[in-house]
């Protein structure tokens, strides 16, 4: 169903069935989570809707094989990382050849206090210049608060690699933010 059904389904006041594995329920339960990760990873609002759609289009194909509904959240995070990584690399390439303007991170913090806004914009500027994989690993560790094992799983790398990426990103950020 289009409007009526989905509006009915996505209302926040409805009971959420965390065990449901059909596309509508999964979209209702996790689209906010996917949008939130996408926004923080990309650092720009204009690609978020596209990423959410892409993630659920990919997820749709694998939903039938989901055995454990509790694993859906992590699985969606992994897909989101894949989609966002592709998008970030494409954006960087476009920016390199002059087809994409630098993102305006100030748009992310319009409601924040001035000092906090400045801090976050500087952090995002630093994140923008570091390798995409380092940025993703750091984001999941320190922004999403995921344990190291989950970060490694979501990023599709070993635990040692995840630790190295996080440490590199942390060092680069420390230089920028503590200046």
């Amino acid at each position: 169903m289009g409007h009526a059904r989905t509006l009915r389904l996505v209302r926040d006041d409805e009971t959420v069935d965390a065990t449901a594995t059909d596309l509508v329920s999964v979209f209702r339960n996790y689209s906010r989570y996917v949008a939130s990760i996408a926004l923080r990873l990309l650092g720009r609002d204009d690609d978020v809707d596209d990423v959410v759609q892409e993630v659920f289009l990919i997820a749709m194909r694998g939903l039938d094989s989901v055995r454990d509904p509790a694993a859906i959240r992590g699985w969606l995070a992994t897909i989101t990382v894949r989609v966002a990584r592709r998008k970030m690399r494409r954006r960087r390439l476009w920016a390199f050849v002059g087809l994409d303007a630098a993102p305006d991170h100030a748009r992310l913090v319009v409601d924040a206090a001035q000092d906090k806004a400045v801090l976050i914009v500087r952090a995002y500027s630093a994140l923008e210049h570091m390798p995409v994989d380092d940025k993703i690993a750091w984001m999941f560790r320190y922004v999403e608060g995921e344990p190291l094992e989950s970060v490694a799983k979501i990023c599709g790398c070993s635990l040692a690699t995840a630790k190295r990426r996080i440490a590199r990103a942390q060092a680069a950020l420390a230089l920028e933010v503590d200046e």
Partner: protein
Amino acid sequence: MIDIGREIASTVRADWNDVRREVVWIGLRARRRRRTVMRIACVSAMAAVALVSLREPHDKRAAPLVDVVADESAESLTAIKRAVPVERPPTHEPQPAASSGEPAVPSRRRVIAQRAEFSTWRELARVGEYERAYEVLDGVHENADDLLMIADVMRLSHHPAEATEPLRRVVRDHADDPRASLAAFTLGRVLLDDLGEAREAAGAFADAIRLAPQGPLAEDALARRVEALARAGDTDEAHALAFQYLDQFPRGRWLRMVRRFGGL
């Protein structure tokens, strides 16, 4: 060092309200339909190639091509198998469906079988069976839920002209409903994209803005209004509204389109 991660987590949040989620969901469905159409087109093309190849009995490409099609779509493979019997070497593997005594029903068929149990148009519409819902649609409906659902049944069963009336009634009779702006926006899309009624569409997009001037659809509605006016030949108003869009959304998502239709 300041805990910058926590600062980002507490400050950078997606503006993810129900209406935006709804808009993304609609876009997701549209992309899904487009992909399905593309997949069907690709499978059909491959099926055609396979059929042509199978006409030549000594053409060794035939069987692999059918296998490729099988990977893409079970229905296409069935169609091809019906049209062209493909000889395969005998297999000695056990057949689970026959030996267990219980037919192994493919999951998709099981879903369709479950869907067949639904009888009312609402139930059919809720599981996405719009064509069948359209066939059994009955009764007089006044509330916004029903009207929006009927509009979807009409629209998604390929009867866009009939979808306009329930949408108009939501806009007219349920203007206080938070979905009225969305109904007006959808009406505009149907009128412009499906029916080619550009002038009426411009009015519907104006309603969408009027009903929720600060709503998440305001930017899209304004941009599409510029497009509708331009298509209706009202270039002066389209030009003026294009300036309004630039003023309101200097970094808007539809800048290029608005400039094009507004003649900027």
